[in-house]
């Protein structure tokens, strides 16, 4: 079996060939091709700042044709590339490849079409998550709402299959993408799906969304949007312990109510967020549970009293019901500020993104408390309680503690997997969690992942070094002899 040159063929130590850079300039224009060290440094990390790699060149294409030109040039030269949207990801998924090409899509930020009669919107990948909901407002919205929604791009959301606070009820990015235009690693442009559902053939949309930039670059995204609910009722209930709040979550859901959102913050998180936002949350309680019911007015009113009773039965200390839209916004600002606010408690933190079956919440939280104590490091917990997606924040003070903090964060991820969960619920594997992949997946599983990757990108040029725990090459497909594109292009020979 012949192996194709993959990432191993790329020489990370050697500077990019000037001819490749000139090709990028010809495609995108000189002002959109960055090669100065200072400019390259701006892009050396994504939202996960502990990883830094300098790309050989940063290019900012503005059209599908330009993206195609960039990718084709990389294919011809055998140079790996990484696509990046706003760079707000938290797994190092948009970390550049040393001396590779970084394709930044922030210039592709047009809303191409708003088709409300069919409840669709077509956007370029650099459009932000918030801009989508604004474009279809005031009567419709786009449900996936990552906390970074003001800055994060739809292209990045597609790559990561982003979630958010409201996805327990409404679903994730993958449930809303109905069509994509994708530039593949060999420069071919394919259309997957469209405005219609159920296009014939494999669900390549489903395979592409959440593939972390390893299968191609989407240059146009068609999204389903839905009517705003008739009513939204938001409350925060405060409890002595996270266990009590967790019991409330279980009782609400098992009673048949699917809240629009149900979010938990522990004491440390409340302290930090309250310092940052000043919403008037009590800082001496063990847990805050934000519960939002939305939908039909009749249904919400019928369920709301039940939810209040469940809280009271489980010993809620107090319940704050949002008086109006401003009050609701303040409650959500407190929740969404949680990560950023951690700076008020400690100079640094690692955020984790583990998922557990919801019923395992008490035992996993107890395990996290144990780990926190044995490491002597504080762990703040904020999570999407409905779907069991935990965001433990391991607080630490500067470089000397970083290694142990990372070790503690890793132990938390392992506790999630041991409880039957996942290493990542919405941040993605990227570079940061790929070492944990073997905890969830065995060799035949990883081999099947590689089959998909090789179908899309046989030379492994798209975002190499991410997701998979170890680098892999694509073998040739057995079967009738076919000239591989590399042979056709005179780049490789069969032996």
């Amino acid at each position, binding site marked *: 079996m012949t192996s194709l040159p993959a990432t191993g063929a790329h020489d990370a130590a050697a500077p990019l060939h000037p001819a490749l850079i000139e090709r990028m300039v010809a495609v995108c224009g000189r002002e959109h091709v960055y090669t100065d060290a200072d400019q390259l440094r701006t892009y050396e990390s994504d939202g996960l700042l502990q990883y830094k790699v300098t790309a050989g060149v940063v290019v900012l294409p503005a059209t599908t044709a330009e993206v195609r030109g960039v990718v084709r040039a990389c294919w011809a030269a055998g140079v790996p590339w990484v696509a990046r949207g706003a760079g707000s990801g938290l797994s190092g998924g948009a970390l550049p490849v040393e001396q590779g090409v970084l394709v930044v899509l922030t210039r592709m930020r047009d809303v191409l079409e708003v088709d409300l009669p069919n409840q669709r919107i077509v956007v370029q990948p650099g459009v932000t998550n918030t801009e989508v909901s604004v474009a279809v407002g005031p009567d419709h919205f786009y449900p996936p709402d990552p906390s970074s929604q003001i800055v994060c791009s739809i292209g990045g959301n597609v790559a990561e299959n982003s979630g958010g606070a409201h996805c327990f009820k409404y679903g994730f990015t993958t449930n809303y993408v109905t069509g994509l235009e994708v530039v593949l690693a060999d420069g071919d442009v394919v*259309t997957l799906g469209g405005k219609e559902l159920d296009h014939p053939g494999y669900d390549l949309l489903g395979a592409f969304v959440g593939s972390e930039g390893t299968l191609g670059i989407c240059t146009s995204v068609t999204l389903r949007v839905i009517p705003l609910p008739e009513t939204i009722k938001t409350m925060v209930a405060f409890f002595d312990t996270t266990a009590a709040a967790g019991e409330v979550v279980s009782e609400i859901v098992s009673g048949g109510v699917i809240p629009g959102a149900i979010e938990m913050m522990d004491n440390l998180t409340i302290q930090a967020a309250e310092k940052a936002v000043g919403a008037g949350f009590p800082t001496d309680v063990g847990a805050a549970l934000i519960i939002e019911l939305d939908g039909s007015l009749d249904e919400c009113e019928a369920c709301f009293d039940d939810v209040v009773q469940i809280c009271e039965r489980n010993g809620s200390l107090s319940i704050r019901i949002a008086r109006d839209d401003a009050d609701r916004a303040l409650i959500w600002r407190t929740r969404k500020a949680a990560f950023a606010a951690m700076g008020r408690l400690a100079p640094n933190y690692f955020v984790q993104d583990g998922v557990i079956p919801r019923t395992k919440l008490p035992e996993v939280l107890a395990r996290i408390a144990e780990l926190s104590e044995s490491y002597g490091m504080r762990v703040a917990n904020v999570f999407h309680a409905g779907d069991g997606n935990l965001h433990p924040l391991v607080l630490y003070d500067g470089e000397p503690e970083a290694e142990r903090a990372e070790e503690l964060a890793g132990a938390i991820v392992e506790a999630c997997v041991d409880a039957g969960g996942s290493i990542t619920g919405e941040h993605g594997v990227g570079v940061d969690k790929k070492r944990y992949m073997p905890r969830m*997946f065995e060799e035949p599983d990883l081999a099947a992942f590689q089959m998909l990757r090789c179908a899309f990108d046989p030379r492994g040029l798209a975002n190499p070094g991410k997701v998979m725990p170890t680098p892999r090459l694509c073998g040739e497909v057995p079967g009738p002899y076919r000239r591989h594109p590399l042979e056709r292009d005179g780049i490789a020979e069969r032996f």
Partner: protein
Amino acid sequence: MGPAGTMRRETPGTAAGVAELLRACADEGSAVRIEGAGTKPWGRPGADCAVALRTGALDAIVEHNAGDLTAVLQPGVSLRVLGETLAAGGQMLALDPPLGAGGAATVGGLIASADSGPLRHRYGAPRDLVLGVTAALSDGTLAHAGGKVIKNVAGYDLAKLFAGSFGTLGVIVEVAVRLHPRPPAQATATATTDDPARLELLASGLAHSALELQSLDVRWEAQAGTVLARFGGVAAADQAAAARRLLVELGAEAAVVEDDEALWAAQRAGQRSAEGGAVVRVSGRPTRLAAACVAAQVAGATLVGRAGLGVSWIALPAAPPGDLVTSIARVRKVLAPSPCVVLDAPAYVRTHLDPWDHPDDGALALMRRVKARFDPTATCNPAVFVGGI
């Protein structure tokens, strides 16, 4: 498919047994026909197969995690048995295809064919409810992707790739699915009209309202249309009354039906055809609903549709196969470029036209590459799928 009598029937009792069988068949160059209960003889007639693999012996409900609203299922579990088991705990798998609750359809067949019913409006299709998959591949391995928690982005989402793949990539030997609470009550608002454009308008009014619909269907039959809006929840009847008011505001005569199960059973049944007929699934848009109704009427067919999603099923009555081919071609021509996939149809029809219509060329090339990677020996359900995959 070759004459049934010449196929060796195999019903492995373990996932490993399925994988071993596939490997043995791949090694000897034998193709394998993969079936659940055999309720959906769709797609191209396919290549001759030496072995018929049925999943009936893999029929365990492996886990029902009631508190987590998830379940782990073997493919041969029948939807009827699953529904009864989950209903005892007030839960459901929110997929209600034809031949499910009242028929023989299996979990594996449902997912492999991506079939669905009226609940899709609110809860999505199989792809949206499958959390994880374990598949036996023709290289003899068992590959697992996803997990059994409702939120998980670790690794590629092969569960979605396998959903709707018609057994052409491998055999689904286990799936993890998301469950939902059963609504405590249901009620339906309906209105009728004999004008396809008005039917589209009424459906659009409901789809764009803030009403929280469980299902939004239409029906066009014998030159008359009905729109049906179903609600689930403790206040289902109140919500249906609100929908009725909206329909009246839009100028329709509307009613609320609280004992509504028969209405929805008829919608599901409308997705299948009588012996000798054919069903065309139209991947349309809500704004092309009237056109689809007209196309159905011209063909002497009935239509049921998920009005908010734009997907419709046109059921052509029994006719000589050559006439069916002509009718289907006409429906496709009128509704182009909406993909029109032929589901139920006599083998003659599925031979004399491509049941899969025309996928995008680039996408089809990519699909061939996916097939070549997962099943390079073309062992699994060869030639039944798009482009002869």
